[in-house]
């Protein structure tokens, strides 16, 4: 039973990590129906920015709380700027073009950003300082769940609540939903669609950056390639949950995390990913729009 609980926790952490990335994926997809392949790269850039800021500040001898706050804030700002720029360069000119063209453009952007960071920062893995302090009160539970893990869980929950609130209740959120439903109609009723899309990219990138900071400090190392793998997994999670739906992304991520964790724990990690993908296929066969996705019937 204890083993089960441990695996459950391990899956929960994994799921929360995926969720932090998947949220941005799903938001962007919801609004422009584009698989934003560069999203993982934004996450990676967030982590790098935080690493640089944290290193500089550490050398200047700041205290840890200030470092983590400032590093996160700067990472979020940078990544949002990147997200915004990427959208302006690679996606905005392609509005109205075939969807596959935008997809290829996204892939190109992903390659570009990867190699850009590779050139600027070398291909080596770099140690990432554990920014999150070990809480005192946690000491006796450290072997079950560590402080960074608690922070990750809490952040995921907060981000999800924040996004749900944003989309449900704010003016911007309403405009976003309108744009997602019918872009032309939204434009007709006076929504500045371009601004909404930019805004979505900024929010999505910001969550990715937050994820980048937390996850990197949990794992303790980063290199230019982390974004791609994490991005694919997060995308799978988003689809599993029903792409376009915010709670769906979280549910999908958790389900994926647990699937992997339990499969590894009780069967074998050799086929962990095989099983995760088979599970995805299985779910999609019975629920073609994902766990939380609404079944769409096309109007005839």
């Amino acid at each position, binding site marked *: 039973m204890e083993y089960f609980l441990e695996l459950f926790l391990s899956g929960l952490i994994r799921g929360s990590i995926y969720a932090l990335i998947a949220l941005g994926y799903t938001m962007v997809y919801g609004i422009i129906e584009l698989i934003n392949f560069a999203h993982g790269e934004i996450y990676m850039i967030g982590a790098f920015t935080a690493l640089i800021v944290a290193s500089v500040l550490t050398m200047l001898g700041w205290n840890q709380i200030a470092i983590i706050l400032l590093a996160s804030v700067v990472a979020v700002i940078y990544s949002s700027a990147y997200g915004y720029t990427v959208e302006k360069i690679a996606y905005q000119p392609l509005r109205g073009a075939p969807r596959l063209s935008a997809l290829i453009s996204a892939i190109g952007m992903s390659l570009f950003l990867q190699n850009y960071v590779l050139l600027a920062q070398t*291909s080596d893995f770099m140690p990432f300082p554990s920014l999150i302090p070990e809480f005192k009160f946690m000491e006796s539970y450290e072997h079950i769940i560590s402080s960074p893990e608690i922070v990750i869980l809490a952040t995921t929950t907060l981000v999800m609540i924040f996004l749900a609130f944003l989309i449900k209740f704010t003016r911007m959120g309403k405009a976003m939903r309108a744009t997602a439903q019918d872009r032309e109609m939204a434009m007709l009723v006076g929504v500045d669609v371009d601004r909404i899309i930019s805004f979505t990219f900024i929010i999505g990138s910001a969550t990715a950056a937050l994820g980048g900071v937390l996850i990197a400090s949990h794992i303790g190392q980063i290199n230019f390639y982390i974004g791609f793998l994490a991005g694919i997994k997060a995308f799978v999670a988003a689809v599993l949950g029903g792409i376009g739906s915010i709670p769906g992304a979280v549910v999908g991520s958790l389900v994926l995390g647990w699937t992997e964790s339990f499969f590894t724990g009780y069967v074998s990690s050799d086929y962990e990913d095989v099983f995760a993908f088979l599970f995805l296929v299985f779910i999609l066969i019975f629920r073609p729009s994902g766990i939380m996705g609404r079944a769409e019937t096309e109007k005839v």
Partner: protein
Amino acid sequence: MMKNHFGKLFVMAILVFFAGSLMYSCGESQKPAEPAKKAEAPAPKAMEPIKIGVAGPHSGDLASYGIPTVKAAELVVEKINGKCGVNGRKIKLIIEDDVCKPEVATNTATKVVGEGVHAVIGHICSGATKAALGIYKESKIAAISPSATNPALTQSGDYPNFFRTIASDDAQAKLEVDFALDVLKLKNIAVLHDKGDYGKGLAEFAKSFLEKDSRAKVVLYEGITPGAVDYSAVVQKIKRSNAEAVIFGGYHPEASKIVAQMRKKKMDTIFISDDGVKDDTFIKVAGKYAEGVYATGPMDTSSNPMAIEAIAAHKKKYGSDPGAFFLNAYAATLALLNAIDKSCSTDYDDIVNALRTEFVATPLGILRFDERGDAIGVGFSIYQVQNGVYVEIK
């Protein structure tokens, strides 16, 4: 830059006709359509530079394994060309990227063959090496790898033209297992690998050695997914298996994640790993968690005067410490040039023969190659992280 390159293509195209037909005259197989008369050996050949190909990943995610080899070859060649070269001929390096991918490696191989190289230093990754070796074999070109450790390369007997200045995976695995059994006297051992060519091969050997020995048993044998965000499920599994030690086959990024997560879970399981982990980056990344980790690596030759000299030269020219496989590559280049020098020839048979018979002093010690192509006198030893540095044990 681009223009230059295309110009080179045309020159190459012409060159290749000669080079290609030369090859025919060497090989036992003659293609009737290609008249052999083109093969009239050009007289001024002796004064032409000796061409050595250097192939490995120079871009992409594995570039950090390939570039030190290029630097080593450059340093050696610079030194030797400064002393009138080999047999009075200068040496020219033809450096080509293979990104560690087999399919690219065949292109790389045909390219260096097309440039008319006499021998090749490389490739770096075992998979790419296997793909390229077929082409070198048929073109009668010897290849010396500083880093391809797959046992089949020498043990299968398929590649008589292959040599390496590094010991093969099974030797490493044997060393790890012996260490675990003889020195640490362990009973329960978990074997993990990263599902990769190198790591899995090594783990398979370790597992079979352990199974042959009755003193310990393998309590867990698993592959982990490289690049995954977290390994806590696997770590839990190790914990449950009651393993006293983990033997891990793979590279340092995954190793450091696993070690860190084990230590965070307050597990003091011994961690024994391989050459891919015996890298200073591992210690930097894993930080305090790296302490006490064992790893096998090439025998410490840092006291060898040639090694000191080579490293000093690298520092002088590039301003930094050399990277992975630098000394192996340095040794490979020296051995190759020595063979050419001693045999007074750039013919395949002569080079291969000289590599097998002539001893040469290298930063790895004085060595020659055995019949299969493994270097005699190159081995591994066990290191442990102590106070943030790898220290040789024994």
